């Protein structure tokens, strides 16, 4: 654990000085600020941010994460020549990716809300939920990026797979689900739809947020089923558990690949 924290400390110093991470924080700051100025109140601003969070966080994290993992290869080699376990190096590098991106998002969204004095009892729950979902999506797509980076040595191919994964989960998935639901419209589909929601972390995060924001109009079809079946605390807990599983499974696969990899 001590070794992990030491590696994280230096990785944070490195990544926090990265201009893309700073630009990412500034982007959320500007968008939140503009939405608050234009829209007026915090709930509306958060609602408008929802789709930005759901689409942009996975894209930035998976692309940045894949590039980060490839570009830190030589540094990883340097660490591997030190008396440190591979597991500690992996966790240190992973945290060095996820913590600065999460911090950039959390600060970028929260600081304008604080500056505009827009946080009150009504907005605190949706705000925390949005921040939590954003951090969870960062961890999930960070884990997927690290898995891609660990399995695919070619940088461009890795980047292509990362973008393909994002496209599949954000754009293609709901379309495929919708097509399947039309094709099998004569059958009871609620169960399979619920299962399909759990197979896509972006759908899961959307459902988690939508259940609290109470805005059925913004939901995809899978989200509608989820709300019907799992509205309330049970749905939130299940979706959160699903998000955790989505972080753990690719994360553990990436760790396994990292421990076996030749550098």
């Amino acid at each position, binding site marked *: 654990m001590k*070794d992990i924290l*030491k*590696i994280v*400390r*230096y*990785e944070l*110093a*490195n*990544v926090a*000085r*990265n201009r893309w991470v700073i630009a990412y924080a500034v982007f959320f700051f500007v968008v939140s600020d503009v939405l608050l100025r234009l829209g007026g109140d915090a709930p509306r601003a958060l609602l408008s941010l929802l789709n930005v969070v759901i689409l942009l966080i996975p894209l930035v994290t998976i692309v940045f994460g894949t590039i980060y993992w490839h*570009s*830190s290869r*030589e*540094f990883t*080699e*340097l*660490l*591997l*020549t*030190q*008396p*440190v*376990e*591979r597991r500690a190096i992996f966790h240190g590098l992973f945290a060095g990716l996820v913590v600065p991106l999460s911090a950039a998002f959390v600060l970028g969204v929260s600081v304008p809300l604080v500056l505009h004095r827009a946080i009150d009892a009504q907005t605190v729950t949706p705000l925390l939920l949005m921040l939590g979902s954003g951090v969870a999506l960062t961890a999930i797509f960070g884990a997927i990026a690290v898995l891609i980076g660990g399995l695919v040595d070619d940088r461009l191919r890795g980047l292509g797979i990362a973008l393909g994964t994002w496209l599949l989960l954000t754009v293609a998935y709901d379309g495929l689900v919708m097509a399947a639901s039309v094709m099998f419209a004569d059958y009871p589909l609620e169960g399979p739809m619920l299962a399909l929601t759990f197979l896509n972390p972006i759908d899961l995060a959307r459902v988690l947020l939508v259940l609290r924001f109470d805005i059925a109009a913004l939901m995809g079809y899978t989200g509608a089923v989820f709300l019907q079946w799992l509205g309330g605390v049970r749905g939130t807990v299940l979706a959160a558990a699903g998000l955790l599983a989505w972080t753990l499974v690719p994360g553990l696969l990436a760790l396994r690949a990292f421990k*076996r990899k*030749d*550098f």
Partner: protein
Amino acid sequence: MIEARGVTKSYGALSVLQGVDLDIVPGQITAIVGPNASGKTTINKIVLGLVRPDAGSVRFDGRPIGGTSDYRRRIGYMPQAARYPENLCARDVLAMLTDLRGSETARDEELIQLFQLDAIMRAPLRTLSGGMRQRVNAALAFLFSPDLLILDEPTAGLDPISSSTLKDKILQEKARGRTFILTSHVLSELQELADRIVFLLDGCIRFTGTQRALKDTTGEPTLERAIAHLMLGSPQAERPAAGRLGIIP
């Protein structure tokens, strides 16, 4: 110090090492030479634990290294080309490694002076030239006074002054009893530094022994000609193909 027995490594269909037996003698400089892609760097990386052999065993002072990391406390490594987190400066990297190694005494000030790193310690590493990074690299390898130093093409990219400084440092540390594994394409450099030569060809060790033994075996006057002789596949080179010449006790 290092005993490797029957080490085999393939990358897909490419067989890099085919049953290599190798002994690294304490207190000596062992040069691993061979043409490109003969497996030199792979041997170094297997000793460091960066690459896992498909078969065979490697022992460090009698203990198998597989899956352990603590033995690396006694190793300093200078890779062929090092890249660091681009936004950190050399001082950060030195501090991090000192931190990772715990309470060991780092000789940073002495090495910073030796490799003339003062002026670049606070510059982000991405802004340094290849040669400057290589000097940082050299300082990192010697930082913790390790018992074994693995130097992969150490003078590549260094200016003549830095290169001489590094070679002097290698000889000075050898005199203090440290062990070196060296790979280099600059044979004049190896002639100056190496006590023992390990010649690798197509993943097999074709020769192990002192420089004198190599010259005697091949009948050539210089190390360069002797190595060229081995690479051209003369009968003398074929003879030890099954194992080693001048087997180290």
